[in-house]
């Protein structure tokens, strides 16, 4: 019984610590995401008419960017719907 209680308490405290870290990192992640968006736009922007890096650089990088392009698509879809996300990140209440 005592061992179970101790394990539960340990899990709770480590969970709490994890939440704190995650919560603290969330806002920096948001800023990092913005930088990442700009980076993706630089590399793949030619699709939407934005000047891209030299063709050979883009061609070399393209195979490595399949995941990024998928994420970029997802973000483009959500780009007009950021109010709720910002409210979730910034503690207001």
């Amino acid at each position, binding site marked *: 019984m005592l061992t179970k209680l101790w394990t539960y308490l340990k899990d709770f405290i480590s969970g709490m610590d994890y*939440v704190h870290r995650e919560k603290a990192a969330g806002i920096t992640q948001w800023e990092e995401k913005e930088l990442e968006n700009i980076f993706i736009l630089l590399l793949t922007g030619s699709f939407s008419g934005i000047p891209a890096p030299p063709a050979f650089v883009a061609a070399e990088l393209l195979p490595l960017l399949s995941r990024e392009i998928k994420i970029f698509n997802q973000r483009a879809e959500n780009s007009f719907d950021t109010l*709720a*996300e910002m409210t979730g990140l910034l503690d207001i*209440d």
Partner: protein
Amino acid sequence: MTTIIVVLGIVVYFVLYKTYGKKLETEVVKADNSIETPAARMYDGVDYVPAKAPVLFGHHFASIAGAAPIIGPVLAMAWGWVPALLWVWFGNIFIGAVHDYLALMASVRYDGKSIQFVASDLITKRTGVLFYWLVFFLLILVIAAFGAVLGGMFVGTPEIPSAYIMKIIAALILGVLMYRVKMNFTLATVIGIILLALAIWLGSILPITASKNTWYVIMFFYIIIASAIPVNVLLQPRDYLNSWLLYFGLIIGAIAALFSFHGFTAPAFTSFAPIVSGGKATPYWPAIVLIIACGSLSGFHSLVGSGTTSKQLEKESDGLAIGYGAMLTEGFLSTLVVISVAGFGLNLMVDKGMDITTANWATTYTGAMMKSYPKAAMFTASYAQMVASTWLNFIPTKIVQIIAGMWVASFAMTTLDTTNRLGRYTFSEIMLPLKSNHEGAYNFLTNRWIASIIPALIGIYLAWSGNFTILWPSFGTANQLIASIALLTGSAWVAKRQKSTSKFALIPAYLLWITVTAAILWFSIVVLPGSIKANPVTGITVLVIEVIMLIMNFVFIIDFIKHKDEAVA
């Protein structure tokens, strides 16, 4: 009595979570773990990431818990502790938690899109635009109400601002240790907590005394600067320290309430219409929604749930604990506030020379509280007394009071500068129609600094010149209005998409809409004229905001009724 109510609160919440909550899960939401959540289906390692239920619960709770659930119930004690508790519990279980849960699950079924998007899709496009305006007004009123709370606390307990300033320095040091020195995270945390304790101790011996208006000027510059500097410099390490304060405060408070075995000195019931807002007799219905506000339900939660939480839900069955359960936990915090003020508030006010008894409570409580322990200070003082009445009395009462004050002040201050960040964003969105024809004006108004200054200036001016018992219900109107729109959206989702019984959503949604509408009308017709007489600029500003919100409210309900039965593709 304190112990009985804590235990009763836990039992009520637990039983209704297990019965009513489960009914919602199976009959309304029809949670199904075989349906992949957006976190799994759209995993991107950044936004869409599945999180374990306890971790996501912590995230969600830390995002929805703040100073508002503390301040509302303090004011609502004017009706007596039974009506205050009744609305906290009833509103929480049957409206607030349902609202949070439906917003979260509707978003989950909408690929993690926001409740604003869901409303645009299920009702009309303009509902999405209404959200921006309502949120912008809400943010201005948040700055006004929370600014007034902080001004009162800083003047009433001068140890709190000095401890807070020391805490900012501690947060800056923690930021340097974590990001510049790249110190081990655990070691940096230990140092941060030691610095936090040191800040509280230094605050207790070096109080800073200044007038309320001086604090307002300082707050104005602080929120402009804090909302413009990179988040990792101040906001992030400060919020990290705040979360430790929240857990510490909640745990100590729960232990103290459980073991204080103290009788209630506040009356159980005073009158249907005691003096609360603007010196006027304030009827329990409909005004209670504006006064308790986030203590029982909050419109912000629909944005939090559908903004970040829905993108991290690992499986649908976790939604009940996170959406519904976190709101009940916040209601438990409001329960603790009612218990502490009911148990210790009267003696505190009498000790300060206030002429208040249980017999004249209905007419004297709000005035006596505002003069002796204004707003949140009533909670921090009674909380400290409650802790002192238990075996935790080895911690000096003054220190406990500063800790509780720091807890409230930290959340209120965080709210102020993050509100300003969000205000800047919503203001830019609202100004978007100007872009095509008046590009110069658009560029000027959406400039980083101008867009920051506008909401801050209006908010702080209202705090400076306004009466708190007017500002707080005004904040309540905007917040509850958003909640009512979100809950109606949730019920439209239940009816149109889920094709399940929508009465669990629709009845509370209509009840909330009618109550909030009646409350805004009562507030604008009965309370605001007095405020306009006392201070025309402030009174008219609040009245204009209320009238615009009321019009939007009617536009929304007409749209809702028109479109609620339309079939969806």
